[in-house]
């Protein structure tokens, strides 16, 4: 049981993170901590380094200098297989363009992430079905992604991201490809998830999304953190 007076433990820790592409520094000495249960929004103009930072936390790219620790794991010490296993067990990602497999049904897309960890097909489908039900698209389970609306696709992507119960959910412009109504639905979903304890890191251009979903906003410019503020979430 956590002591209510103690701050939650740190889940993500970045220390002096630097990433160079040739002569250009995409990240220039970024240090940041995210605690369990937080919902952090990262904002900034295009090319400010926010997506690069997301890649570092997800283990999709390696920093030129500095360290990233997620859930106690130093990502610099992991090889490619170790990073894949880290992604499988510790984090999940949702993207602007959903990235669902066109050849699989919604149910199989969601079950896929569980099956990759070795969960049997039946069990994985059962868990996927429960998630789809919770997200309100269980009736779409046998359809293929092409037959879904944008909002439904993103819900399916969220279901896939949650199927392995990740410690951290990374969202890269999750409402960027959605109309306002679908965007609202996804925002509500993210808020609900955070309220039941899911740690969120959202990269977005959308101040509305940041304001509604995040408890803290980190602002990026030229590869550096230039501002940070804590929010009182609007109910």
């Amino acid at each position, binding site marked *: 049981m956590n002591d209510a007076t103690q701050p939650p433990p740190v889940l993500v820790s970045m220390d002096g993170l630097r990433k160079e592409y040739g002569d250009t520094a995409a990240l220039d000495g970024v240090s940041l901590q995210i605690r369990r249960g937080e919902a952090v929004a990262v904002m900034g103009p295009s090319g400010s380094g926010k997506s690069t930072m997301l890649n570092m936390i997800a283990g999709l790219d390696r920093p030129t200098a500095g360290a990233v620790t997620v859930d106690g794991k130093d990502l610099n010490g992991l090889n490619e*297989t170790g990073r894949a296993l880290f992604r499988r067990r510790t984090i999940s990602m949702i993207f602007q*363009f959903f*990235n669902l497999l066109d*050849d699989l049904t919604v149910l199989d897309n969601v079950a896929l992430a569980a099956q*990759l960890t070795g969960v049997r*097909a039946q069990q994985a489908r059962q868990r996927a079905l429960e998630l789809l039900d919770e997200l309100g698209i269980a009736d779409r389970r046998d359809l293929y992604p092409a037959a879904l609306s944008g909002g439904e696709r993103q819900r399916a992507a969220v279901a896939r991201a949650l199927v392995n119960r990740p410690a951290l959910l990374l969202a890269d412009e999750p409402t960027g490809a959605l109309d306002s109504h679908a965007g609202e639905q996804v925002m509500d979903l993210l808020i609900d998830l955070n309220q039941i304890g899911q740690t969120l890191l959202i990269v977005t251009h959308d101040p509305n999304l940041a304001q509604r979903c995040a408890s803290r906003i980190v602002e990026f410019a030229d590869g550096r953190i230039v501002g940070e503020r804590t929010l009182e979430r609007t109910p």
Partner: protein
Amino acid sequence: MSAVWRTARASMRRRRFQTAVIALVVMFSSGTVVAALALLAASSGPFDRVFAEQQGAHLTATFDPAAASDAQLESTADLDCVAEAAGPFGQLATTLAVDDDAAVEFPATIAGRDDPAGPVDRLDLWEGRWAAAEGEIVLNTAPADPGDPGAPLPVGATVRAGDGTVLTVVGHAYSFGQTADAWVTADQLEAMGPTAVQMLYRLDDHDTAADVEAGLDAVTAAVPAGSLTGAQSYLALKERISAELGIFVVLLTVFGVLGLAVAVLIVANVVSGAVVSGLRHIGVLKAIGFTPRQVVWVYLTMVSLPALVGAAIGTVLGHFLAAGAMSETFREAGLGNPVVSPWADAAAFVGMPLLVLLAALAPAMRAHRLSAAEAISAGSAPRSGRGLRAHRWLSGTPLPRSVSLGLGLPFARPGRTALTATAVALGVTTATFTAGLAAFATEIDGLIQRHEAAQIEVVGGPGGPSGATGLGDQETQDLLASLPGASEVTANLRMPVTAAGFVQSAELWFIRGESSRMGFTDQLVDGRWMDGPGEAVASSKTVHENDLAIGDDVTLELGGRTATVTIVGVVMGSGTGTVYADWSTLTDLTADVDGLGHPISYEVRLEDGTDPQEYLTALTGAGLTGQSTRQSDAVSIAVVGLATMFALMLGTVAALGVFNTVALNARERRRDLGMLKSIGMTPRQVVTMMVTSMASLGVIGGLIGIALGVVAHREILRLAAAASQIDMPASALATWNAPQLALLALAGLAIAIAGAYLPARRAARLTIAEVLHSE
């Protein structure tokens, strides 16, 4: 045009991997095409080609030097039937012992020739030089690598002739017509004391045994009576070579055709895949103002340049590879040194880039027709909605997810999948063919050589190497039977005989002794082996050519005497007019066998456990010379070697086809791969998925390839045999067994895995960040 060139060059730089794949595939395919065409050309009539190259002797006659003068023999060159003649050359039947190892001794007929060239029997002096002085000798050996087992004595070695003369080997030459085992200068031979004089003739009419016999009759009539001591027709050699090589030639031709088919198929697949995968790029070019024609030119340039480079390198490599392999194969078989025709080089160098253009044209024209938006959409990913049912079913199976995803991948691009599977199938067909060829060659060797039934052959009688001993026919046979290790000795005399109703004269084998145990029974394709006087067995070609059937009587005629035999069986054989009859038939036809002047061949069956070499040594000690019957499988070994090289080349080309398909699939599915890695698919799982996608094709292609290979092997053998009018015993066709087929089934899998592994590894290392964050 400069915009087209600049764009094409930039695109090639950007797609270095694909450009390299096109160059690599075209390179291997061009090499295969050169080898295939060269093989087709060299396989066409190998005997006639080499015999013509050497101006081989249609008739080799030996004379008693005491009975016919050189001038009389030289005058036979002017006979009407003689086109060219060479000789007289002194001839000595003796033994040669390796000087530094007296235990190694072999029989040899030495001829005295001052020149390896001449109008007839132009020798291939392939190592060293010709004998120019006394004490020098040139050995007759088929060209071979000095390091090979059984290679000839090296130049510089010394040998000791039967009369004690020590001779230094100064060169190796090859007489396709086997006119002698070694040559010395005419003076040297004179000093050693010739036992016969040799004349070599090329005849105007020489197609049939009767033609050659007529030539011999004319020569005999032109020299003093009784001076002819022996004669050898080239047809016997031709028959032996044809029997050994005839079917193989057909199979090698099939290899050539298969090589062409696989190369064409893979190139078409690779090039059309390259254009299809570039449709998005084509859409972008159109969107920024390129005309449809310019777009087509960009793509044709992009595939043609690497194709040209690949074709140039492949043609050169293929030329040298084919020249080396064919040289070894054909020279091992004593069939000269065929050159790779410039036409083969030209066809590959010009043909492959043209094929590439043709293969690229169809998808490029499609791109020509598509609007910019359609092209971008068509090129973004494989059309979804294909194979959904299969994906759904696979998702629910207990297979590891990386495996079930891999199994579903081929359904996304059915056309590409079909072409790749076909290439794998053809690769396996080739492997199956090769395995079948090897088994068939072993079986045929055993049947033709009959070395299980008789291990030693001794040629005696007039004109034969053993004639010098002075022993008569029966004395020779008795001597052979008396030597330690001999179990059974049979004798046979082969000669042309007139047979009533035959389209040509018959080539009779008169056999004395237990002929049923000489191995001919294994060659039976119909009826039974003869078991007494008055019975005969004919080769299948003889039966077909003369419309004979079992039970038919054939009347033989020789020198005015006749004998009738009944055909009781048919054996495999390509011999025109070949008939086997009992020795009593010969004695019915002539009272004076020795007077016929034909050599008698003795076959010795050894007791179990007897070393043939020990028997040969004992034979030499008794003044006779012989040879092991297990000598001439060089042909099949060489043919199988060549076939194996082809199977490996075609397997590599098929694997390159798989390589290309996986590379294209990975390129098209970058987004999916990125997503899978983002949700925790490990690099090993990515490799498993991509390799599995091709392994399934490997299994399917493998099974189809085996079926095709087995059926084609049998049918082509049957057709080839029918075309040559040769029937074969069932044992020659039953070359397959379950373990062998199981191994061959793995060949498809091996091709698929070998081709898929590298691009799968590359896909596993894909940098996923950028493909996931934007569209």
